[in-house]
């Protein structure tokens, strides 16, 4: 579904990505793990067109999106849930969800109502807090809202940037369960995580990034049992 080939990105003189190649297949959860500055967020930003690229190519469902404008990429069906949640603080939960539909002009009223219903079944807590301001939610609820808002544009693939950041372990587990359910709904998930053990436990496949390069790749299980990964990221 998504194919990245030899992609490199520079921030000024700093090489953030040095020719990474990876693939995400339909209905998969693929995770990118790696330490700070490995290039995980940059990879997501380049997929959704928020950074300029030095070289290489990105294709989504057979379309080349390397130099496409961000709103067109969204229109193709890629939702990006950026790091740090970034919910709209003074809009209500419902308004936040409605804002998620802005990028997809194909949605009609009936479809939007259906999508709202879908989010409320997936995240019952958001239904309870429907009229509450986004900024008044707890961290975990805000993360759920950010994910739900991404799903409101009815994407084929959703990219999550560090959904576990700053959340209590019990909430993190809940979030990861939800990610599995999103995959089961027929979406493709590209997940970035520092919490490598959690991410690998639910991922179909994973890539380990270091210094802007792909160090290792394989199935979630294989990577979780790989000695190198264990040492570097799982703290074993």
């Amino acid at each position, binding site marked *: 579904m998504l194919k990245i080939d030899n992609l490199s990105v520079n921030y000024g003189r700093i090489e953030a990505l040095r020719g990474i190649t990876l693939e995400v297949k339909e209905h998969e959860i693929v995770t990118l793990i790696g330490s700070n500055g490995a290039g995980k967020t940059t990879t997501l930003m380049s997929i959704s067109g928020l950074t300029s690229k030095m070289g290489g190519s990105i294709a989504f469902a057979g379309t080349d999106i390397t130099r496409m404008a961000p709103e067109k990429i969204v229109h193709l069906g890629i939702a990006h849930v950026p790091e740090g949640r970034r919910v*709209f603080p003074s809009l209500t939960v419902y308004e936040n969800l409605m804002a998620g539909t802005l*990028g997809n002009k194909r949605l009609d009223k009936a479809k939007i109502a259906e999508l709202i219903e879908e989010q409320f079944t997936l995240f019952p807590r958001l239904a309870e807090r429907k009229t509450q301001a986004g900024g008044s939610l707890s961290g975990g609820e805000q993360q759920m809202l950010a994910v739900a808002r991404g799903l409101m544009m009815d994407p084929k693939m959703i990219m999550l940037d560090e959904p576990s950041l700053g959340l209590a372990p019990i909430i993190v587990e809940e979030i990861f369960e939800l990610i599995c359910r999103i995959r089961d709904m027929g979406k493709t998930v590209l997940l970035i995580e520092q919490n490598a053990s959690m991410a690998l436990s639910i991922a179909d496949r994973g890539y380990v990034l270091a210094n802007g390069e792909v160090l290792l790749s394989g199935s979630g299980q294989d990577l979780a049992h790989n000695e190198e990964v264990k040492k570097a990221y799982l703290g074993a």
Partner: protein
Amino acid sequence: MTMQKVKQMWARYRVFLLIAAAVILIVLPLLGFKNSTIRIFCRILMYTTLAGSLNITNGYSGQMSLGHAGFFCVGAYTMAILATRFGISFWLLMPLAGIAAALIGLVVAVPTLRMKGLYLSIITLGASEVIRIIALNWQSLTGGSFGIKDIPRPAILSFEVDSPSKFYYVFLAVAVLFLFVSRRVLNSRVGRGWISIRENELAAKSLGIQTSSAKLTNFMYGAFWAGICGAVYAPYVQYIDSAVFSLDEGFNILSMVIIGGQGTLVGPVVGAVVVNGLTEVLRPIGEWRFVMYGALIIVMMWLRPQGLMGASDNVLAGGKIKAVKKTRRLSAGVQK
């Protein structure tokens, strides 16, 4: 709590209250007020639209513009020049003046697209002054420091709009039209895009909103209505010169938006009533009233940073959101 009660009352008697307000607004000039009082009503209505249109930029898309007087100026001069030289009809010139102001708005907005906060404010401040100084110095077109006099009054067929009480209805119509159209726009895809930029620009981008073009349309929309106000103001006073459109005027409009409440449609209406009302009430103390304004704005920033009509869950009322969050966390902790 009281706010909730007000909201409940509003929900229940909405239609009745709206009709009552409409009736009062329509018969107001017929109740035998002095011309000077009716002029105050006219001011309030004009500033309702002016402050409201600034609020579209500052309150809804979160771009702090300080140069609204400039667009007001463009609208007034467009009307004054074209009406006195070519005798074009007021009704044709009114939208034209709006479009002229919107185009100048585009010229100001394009170079500021990548700027935020203070930098954008400074550019708009400068642009407003540039417009005023051009009006002051382009003698052949604008009459320079002599201004433009004898601006013809509008007429509907043979019925001339020639007194404050007749102009009252023009200002009223503009204000109502502005509020009605803006309400529709803000609830549309376009308006929601503006609001999401205010809330979090990066998130808006990641949701596929074209933030740069949204900011442009937002700026132009605000400037358009300021231009319309200028176009009505020019024949109302019949004489304009550049001194009217100084930075003071810009800050005057801004103070109504801030005092009334940014990011709500009713806020600038209340701001226009309060600030213009205070101007009259405080007239006996002369220039000291400007000190009062300053003090009022400072007190507002302390007590109610979101403005009189701003919601307490507004992003500008940051402290309150945190307070709510904290109590929730505490009570959650108790449960565990």
